[in-house]
């Protein structure tokens, strides 16, 4: 094969591995932010906030390489779909990273009067989101759109838990108005986790488009 073309195909492979790396870092950020919140560990939380810069830089690097490939190689068919999907997945991953940072800010900015241990469903939501993200990455590795389709089904679990956590927090606020500030912060965490689930659904849609060329709305 023409060496220029071979290099181009290698660069496409690298785009995929960089996207996996981005997903792994974001996955870690979700896990760490929830751990920091559970323990109300502001030092750990500050680390996560600092690490978000790495996610942003990696995303920018991926985006720049996509632009370069579009400009120089005029990709077609599955190559074009891959590049478009990688750009879109990058946007969703970057947003998930930001939401993890927003969760990590809670132990930095609040007093922790409402212990997360009382709200086990919050860590469960985060665990489901991480499982979904792992499956999305597996769909990319195995080039299997059905794995991505299956992963999106778990978003309903997150949505159901979202309602339960919200109602529980409302009840806590009614019982003890002194806890309104912290409970409101946890309402935001609840919302962020629900949004993370939505972004992972978007990622799965991009993966399905990348593999099969069809646009499905699964969120």
């Amino acid at each position, binding site marked *: *094969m*023409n060496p220029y*073309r071979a290099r*181009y195909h290698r660069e496409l492979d690298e785009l995929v591995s960089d996207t996996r790396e981005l997903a792994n870092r974001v996955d870690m950020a979700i896990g760490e932010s929830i751990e920091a919140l559970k323990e109300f560990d502001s030092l750990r939380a500050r680390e996560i906030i600092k690490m978000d810069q790495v996610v942003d830089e990696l995303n920018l690097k991926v985006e720049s390489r996509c632009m370069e490939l579009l400009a120089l190689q005029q990709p*077609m*068919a599955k*190559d*074009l*779909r891959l590049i478009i999907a990688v750009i879109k997945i990058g946007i969703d991953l970057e947003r998930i990273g930001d939401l993890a940072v927003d969760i990590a800010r809670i132990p930095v900015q609040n007093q922790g009067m409402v212990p997360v241990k009382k709200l086990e469903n919050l860590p469960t939501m985060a665990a489901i989101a991480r499982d979904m993200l792992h499956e999305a990455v597996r769909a990319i590795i195995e080039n299997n759109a059905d794995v991505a389709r299956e992963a999106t089904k778990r978003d309903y679990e997150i949505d159901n838990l979202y309602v339960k956590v919200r109602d529980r927090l409302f009840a806590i606020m009614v019982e003890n108005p002194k806890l309104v500030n912290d409970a409101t912060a946890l309402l935001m965490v609840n919302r962020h986790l629900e949004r993370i689930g939505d972004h992972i659904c978007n990622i799965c849609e991009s993966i399905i488009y990348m593999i099969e*060329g069809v646009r499905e709305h699964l969120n």
Partner: protein
Amino acid sequence: MSYKIESRNLNLWYGSTHALKGVTLGIPESTITALIGPSGCGKSTFIRCLNRMNDLIDIVRIEGEVLYDNKNIYDKDVDVVELRKRIGMVFQKPNPFPMSIFDNIAYGPRIHGMSNVDKIVERSLNDAALWEEVSDRLDSPAMGLSGGQQQRLCIARTLAMRPEVILFDEPCSALDPISTSKIEGLMDELRSEYTQIIVTHNMQQAARVSEYTAFFLLGEMLEVGRTKEIFENPREKSTEDYITGRFG
């Protein structure tokens, strides 16, 4: 769908070489259809079948049908000169006649006894987006024009005969990007009045100008569809391998 021109199980042999293998392909009216595929795949051979240009090659044998307005152009009663008047062709290399710009355009109308040749020349040059560049030097030799202008002159010469179908065999492969852009713009303007078929090796050109794309490989037409679908999500793996440069 009804087609302006349609091949049915078209086979062609150059001596013992089977160059077109059962090609069935319909070209809708007033559209641009691009034919793509690697060198030697039969796309130029195919396009030349559509106005019987291959008749000029002694060793060629053709089987199957090419229907033009539902009439087989290979029927014995078909007037080939009249057919080529209605199905014009523009070649890879501009081939103006060694005469003036005016005479290049007027040549066809004159030998067909058409009247108002002056008007035909002006209209054809206008339609080919060349009038403004040459109107003050119609008596100059056509060979003095640039490559891009010569190619538009050849298109004007084709338009002078008021064809219904125009076949373009790699019309921009010898042109710079500016001239290429002018030819593509011209094809776009002609879209509503003419059925156009273009053979091109330039994937981006096929994607830009055409509504339909057909992929040829080793004498077979493997896939045809809307250009958007062919370039975004082709059905055939070999089409995908070709347009993404994974052949070889």
